[in-house]
């Protein structure tokens, strides 16, 4: 019972500190902007730990953060193997193939106004569908290994990526296109120097949406069949063995991989579209 009261005290204390910081004179500094969510996160973890211990929640319902951390540290080789199989091979392989295919299709489609007009509504429609359901079919076609996961990822990200790229390639206005015309620029010259740069913010938007989709596709596809390695496989078998600390360790890996993947794409976006207003205002 003491631990539960302690948890409540920590929660109130953390909130009080954050309240002071957020309404204090230095609330707008970058340091405080990072500190406040960090304090919130740490408070949350501490309350979780204390509540699990204080209320003696069994492991099969909710492991404490310390148990998860111990499991994480003690099974690094397994987690790394799963990470390689699911993220590096399945998700990343599919991501590269899907993005390339979608951008190439978009460039082809963009040459015909008729096709573009038809493809945008269809693409938007398909992007909202539960594409992840194709996983059992693709697992049946491409076997249990990472190829089928990559295929699921390709199918999942193709249309969001296509729609974004097509929308980006038509962002130029008449003035800009006319200017290119007066320079006697060829199709590819105006493509590389005008339309592709203008489309980049849209392409990066698609790339960022696709990072999460890629991870979801690779993990869920493993629920339908996988070799005895992989994050989705580990999650579903560990759930079956009620080894929830392992499940949480995999979720930590997924969270880290997801944020890192997204962060990487954002970094490239900042490098390639430094001229765009949304990037300039941040600096």
């Amino acid at each position, binding site marked *: 019972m003491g631990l539960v009261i302690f948890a409540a005290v920590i929660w109130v204390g953390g*909130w009080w500190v*954050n*309240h002071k*910081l*957020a309404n204090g004179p230095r*609330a707008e500094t970058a340091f*405080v*902007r990072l500190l*406040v*969510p960090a304090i*919130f*996160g740490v408070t949350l973890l501490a309350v979780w730990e204390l509540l699990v211990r204080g209320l003696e929640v069994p492991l*099969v*319902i*909710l492991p404490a953060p310390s148990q998860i951390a111990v499991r994480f540290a003690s099974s690094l080789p397994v987690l790394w193997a799963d990470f390689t199989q699911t993220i590096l091979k399945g998700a990343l392989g599919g991501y590269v193939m899907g993005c390339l295919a979608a951008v190439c299709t978009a460039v082809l489609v963009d040459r015909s106004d*008729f*096709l*573009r*007009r*038809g*493809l945008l*509504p*269809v693409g938007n*429609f398909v992007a*909202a*569908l*539960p594409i*992840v*359901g*194709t*996983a*059992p*079919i693709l*697992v*049946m*076609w491409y076997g249990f290994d990472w190829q089928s996961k990559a295929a699921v990822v390709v199918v999942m990200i193709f249309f969001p990526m296509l729609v974004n790229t097509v929308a980006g390639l038509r962002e130029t206005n008449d003035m800009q296109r006319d200017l290119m015309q007066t320079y006697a620029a060829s199709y590819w010259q105006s493509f590389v120097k005008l339309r592709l740069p203008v489309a980049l913010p849209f392409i990066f938007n698609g790339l960022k949406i696709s990072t*999460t989709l890629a*991870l*979801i596709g690779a*993990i*869920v596809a493993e*629920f*339908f*069949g996988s070799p005895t390695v992989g994050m*989705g496989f580990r*999650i*579903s078998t560990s*759930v*079956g063995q*009620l080894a*929830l600390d392992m*499940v*949480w360790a*995999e*979720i930590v890996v*997924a*969270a880290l991989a*997801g*944020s890192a993947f*997204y962060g990487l794409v954002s970094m490239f976006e900042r490098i390639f579209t430094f001229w765009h207003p949304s990037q300039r205002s941040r600096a």
Partner: protein
Amino acid sequence: MKTFLSVLTVVAGIIGIWYLACVPMNIKGVLDAAERAGAVVEPATPKARRDLGAMGLVVNNSFAIADVWSVDRPRLPAPHQVAIELWETTVEKKITSKRSLIYHGQVTLSATLLGFAIGTGLGILLAVGIVHSKVMDMSVMPWAIVSQTIPIIALAPMIIVVLYSIGVQGLLPKAIIAAYLSFFPVVVGMVKGLRSPDHMQVDLLKTYSANTAQGFWKLRLPSSMPYLFASLKIGIAASLVGAIVGELPTGAVAGFGARLLAGSYYGQTVQIWSALFAAAILAALLVALLGLVERFLLRRMGVTT
């Protein structure tokens, strides 16, 4: 009108590619069946056929092409096979039958809608809190944004099993998964929407000496509607995915997820495809319904779109 024609062309093109893809995908099964029935097949043994590749088989055995669209358990069913299966399992079966897609759809739909309602309600509440409290904005909002980059669907099997072990089963676990998938898009979209009034408008309300509640009901909430609906459409699609994935680890009793899983266990490809299309149609209907509500609401509010 022109758009309609273009869309029709694109859809026809996709269906055409699908029919063409059936030929190399199914030719091997057709030839194996033909050999068993006594026809002369080139090359003669199954092993040689496996080594030759699909395209070579098609070239060597053009007589079999006609059969690839009517295989019983094809690797890739032809569009009309899926359409027939859809028709038979929705219209011709009784709704109470375990083989009716309407029955499975209603199972998935109820979990989706319940989860969507929970997720949207909580999401809007949290967004209101974030907009009005600086502490919540600074401490919770970064986590809400980061959570969008995480495949939280990986939690789904665990939620099902944990809730089962404490005695909760049936609709609620799936609804919880659907809820947390729709929760974060709604929070992020709604915060953006509630912040969308510009300084002029906020200042105007201040000169009217409007209090916070009036500012919320008369300015912030109405101007957040377009943003809210944009994220609701994302949210309901995510909810449906959550409900389908939530049906996978329970051993598949009912619902679209169960149909997918059972189909993949027993190699019933037509069943998988029809469940997939039924889910797609359901998702499209839900999004279209939200679009209708949005249009109606925005028109009543006097927003010209």
